[in-house]
């Protein structure tokens, strides 16, 4: 009996989204098959790795996470440049940590100056990640959208609470939004519909399904992304046909198991390699589920994940 590979009939396609401008703009999405199943459909763009840069010197990073950036970590512009020039970053994700009302609570105007400095200093696409505080982000991200006019940046997280304010500015300045919902297919769909009603073009929406790191809820993110993809590709759920972005670096690097040193627990082995693998396995798992952009921290993790994606895209 001749064997034939059973193929799935896909009826949908993920929206292709271009981030950034010019020669170094990056396209994500566009797939008409499950992630990396290129034997039965198109996956025109590989999963992209974005390097995170904080808007302010981080206080509580492990020294082995600081190490690759230690000469630039106090300076977001230099940090972003080093990520691009030394580590080959194709996308920068600027995390506006210092604006967090539960932390430093720096005023929006001050933080936006950092955004402006970074966006003007780099030629790769920029992702701007706010504080996840609805009110603060409504102000902060609107201003960020404005100062990045013409740069086609991605801003978020945009929630059901602040999508109108941020969405309107994003439309006005031609930016992309990252629609953020708490691990739920229906809520994700609903927010995409709301953004559509507001006038947000389909090719300007990325989805943030909320990311759990390895050992801390990875499975929830993994399955909700698989469900999003299934609905988008096989159930003609047009409102879920958007590329997925996972902001995973902080989720992994804040965990206990990424902080313990070898001398704290011999069985956990070398702390640098362990945390690199925790980060890259999280990224790889999410990419296999359907993430189109993964935001990562350590250059070695990023390199490993890129290599694996290269293998699967051969």
């Amino acid at each position, binding site marked *: 009996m001749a*064997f034939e590979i059973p193929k799935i009939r896909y009826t949908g396609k993920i929206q292709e989204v271009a981030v950034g401008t010019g020669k170094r703009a990056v396209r994500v999405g566009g797939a008409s098959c499950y992630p990396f199943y290129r*034997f039965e459909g198109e996956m025109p763009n590989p999963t992209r790795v974005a390097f995170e840069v904080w808007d302010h010197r981080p206080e509580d990073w492990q020294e082995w996470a600081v190490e690759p950036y230690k000469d630039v970590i106090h300076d977001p512009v230099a940090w972003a440049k080093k990520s691009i020039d030394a580590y080959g970053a194709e996308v920068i994700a600027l995390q506006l940590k210092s604006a967090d009302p539960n932390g430093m609570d720096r005023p929006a105007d001050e933080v936006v100056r950092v955004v402006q400095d970074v966006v003007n200093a780099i030629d790769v696409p920029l992702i701007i990640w706010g504080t996840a505080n609805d009110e603060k982000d409504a102000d902060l991200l609107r201003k960020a959208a404005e100062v990045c006019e013409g740069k086609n940046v991605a801003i978020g997280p945009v929630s059901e609470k602040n999508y109108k304010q941020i969405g309107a500015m994003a439309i006005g300045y031609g930016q992309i939004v990252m629609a953020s919902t708490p691990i739920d297919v229906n809520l994700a769909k609903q927010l995409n519909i709301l953004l559509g009603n507001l006038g947000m073009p389909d090719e300007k929406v990325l989805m943030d399904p909320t990311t759990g790191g390895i050992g801390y809820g990875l499975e929830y993110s993994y399955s909700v992304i698989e469900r999003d993809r299934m609905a988008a590709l096989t159930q003609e759920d047009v409102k879920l046909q958007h590329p997925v972005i996972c902001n995973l670096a902080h989720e992994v690097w804040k965990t206990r198991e990424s*902080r313990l040193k070898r001398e704290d627990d011999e*069985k956990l*082995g*070398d702390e640098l390699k362990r945390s690199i693998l925790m980060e890259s*396995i999280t990224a790889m798992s999410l990419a296999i589920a359907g993430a189109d952009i993964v935001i990562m921290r350590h250059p070695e993790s990023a390199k490993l994940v890129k*290599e694996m994606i290269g293998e699967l895209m051969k």
Partner: protein
Amino acid sequence: MALTGIQIFKLLPKTNCGECKFPTCLAFAMALAAGKAELDACPHVSPEARAELSDASAPPIRQVGIGVGDYEVRIGGETVMFRHEKTFFNKPGLAILITDAMDEAEAERRFAKLSLYQYERVGLTLRPELVALKETGNKERFLNLVRKACGMPYSIILMTLDAALMKEALDIAKERRPLMYAATEENYEEFGNMAKNYGAPLAVKGQNIEEAATLSEKLTGMGIKDLVLDTGQRSVRDSFYDQVCIRRAALLNKYKPLGFPTITFPCEMTDNPMKEVLIASAFVAKYAGIIVMSDFEGETLFPLLLQRLNIYTDPQRPMTTKEGIYPINNPDESSPVLVTCNFSLTYFIVSGEIENSRVPSWLCVMDTEGLSVMTAWAAGKFVGDLVGAFMKKCGIIEKVHHKKVIIPGYAAGILGDLEEELPGWEVLVGPREAAHLPAYLRMWK
């Protein structure tokens, strides 16, 4: 297409003799339809009915057991393509490679790693299960490894294509139900007969997926049931494709020759141990039955075990943490007391943030049947009188001088009831998000 319980029932003797251990033929039919019973349990079914039923009633992917006792690895038996459709049942077995070319000390070190690298988490022990013993020309040494492995509890994979040597190895390890690796186009008849005689599970290795299917068909024809598939591909992409295709062929097309679990070899796909772990993680997500690694270290194995735990967690059942008092950062009688629910993710995140704060604290975890704070509160399982009763009986009162307790921000609504339940106590509302706990605790007086 699988038959329904009723369709199966029509083909059974309908005598309700009970010899299958089910009270009625209908109950047996239902169990067959659910894949929870085997047709062989019925001694009276007619040959015609058997032929019709055995095709339909066998699970689409055979569950295969390797090893015996505590370290037995069960693989296969999966029923879905995506974990959210039901759950994945049998996590892939992780094997460490030990070859006859390694010196004594190195082999010892590798055996020792299986007992060393074990990790407790959510009441489970995360650990690798198998040793893959590989012959590369030194037969005496190979047999010595087999003898050594038989003195340990781990499940065994015997890797040699030499039938005479495999027989010697089986004579040593037959009690252990080792996985024979591998039957090929050249040796399958001898290997098949040995698998039958020794009752050992058998891996088939084809040059590609078609050849693996052909071999499995031939061996099934010889009456062998417990097979494991290797499609021979050693590029990441092709092996990944094969995993998907095998699962699909078995589940969607009910294609019997591929209705078996698989074995994968990240150890033969790269020389970079870090990358090898990433390759293995892709096979954890996509359908491997066994994953053979070139080596384990704590830093490479632990993340992989954690991912395997995550992917193979049953999405239908929340993971829970044991009710009780958890001391964090060496608390004393003046340290803050926090209370939360026993959804294990909540526990991990809250305890992790308390640890990050470096503030010595007591974390009281209350049994909410695995519900998170908000869900438990909405379901009436994290409310004032229950939390109050728990605080009184859990023993925290004996551990601290003060009478202050911090409740999760999302449960602020229980403040009044809880104060009533705990007279003389001060109930403080903590932050809503665990991420804000360190800042909150550092201000605690």
